[in-house]
């Protein structure tokens, strides 16, 4: 009986979690600037500034600004401002062309919103440092 109660509790929590998380897709157009690069024993280590625009399948769009570093792994700290002026904070980690992002709340409708994304570099030009990013996300925004 105890095991059944534990199972029902876990199942209920999982169901509630799925019900309250919303899945959507987004696309980013990004322009990268290399702020500084140093050579290290593991190869070049670069400072990055990234700015761009985005739109998502929920009908939101806006701008995104990030600062980060790139060595074998790219790590960036970003904020996205949508059409209502609401800000969403997120961090991104990428190896190669595949990455993951985590939402860390924000302002307005994004306050206390958690979730994350998987993302891919769909196209990138090393000469102009312009990239097209596709994302598949899930968050707790209602």
């Amino acid at each position, binding site marked *: 009986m105890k095991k059944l109660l534990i199972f029902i509790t876990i199942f209920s929590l999982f169901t509630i979690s799925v019900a309250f998380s919303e899945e959507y897709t987004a*696309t980013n157009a990004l322009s990268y600037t290399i702020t500084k690069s140093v050579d290290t024993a593991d190869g070049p280590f670069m400072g990055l500034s990234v700015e761009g*625009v985005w739109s998502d399948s929920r009908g939101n769009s806006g701008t995104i600004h990030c600062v980060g570093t790139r060595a074998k792994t790219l790590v960036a700290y970003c904020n996205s401002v949508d059409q209502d002026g609401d800000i969403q904070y997120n961090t991104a980690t990428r190896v190669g062309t595949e990455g993951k992002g985590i939402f860390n709340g924000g302002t307005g409708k994004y306050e206390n919103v958690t979730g994350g994304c998987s993302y891919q570099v769909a196209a990138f030009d090393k000469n*102009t440092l*312009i990239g097209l990013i596709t994302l598949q996300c899930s968050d707790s925004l209602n």
Partner: protein
Amino acid sequence: MKNIIILLTIILMFTCKLVLAEDFSLTFANKYSMNGSVETPLGILKALTIKGVYTDSRGHKGVINCIATSGKNLDFVCDAKDEDGDMNYSSGRRVGNGGEAIFTGGTGKYANITSKCEYQIASFSKDILVGLITMQCSTN
């Protein structure tokens, strides 16, 4: 009998057109640069260069390079190079947040291929001059 033949011919031509027309979509990430402006009787006309990257629903991707003028409308001429090094040429006009473009052949797989497209600005920032463009095309 003659009417039936005419009807069958029309149906056949319509079916062939549908079969040979290929619909596809593209997404662009573009960075815009202002290169100067002149005053005209119709207002200020700005010169632009546009550089970016794209992917399409047929599995191709590449870089795009355009020159444009922006006044009441935005008129542009572009070349794009895909992952195989094949070039395609396009031109078009944007009015407001949308516009029309036409692909007018190219090299390799794009030689003699023409397409008509409609496109929209999904997102654009005047401050950083970066745009996200979606386009729907039909090839005949």
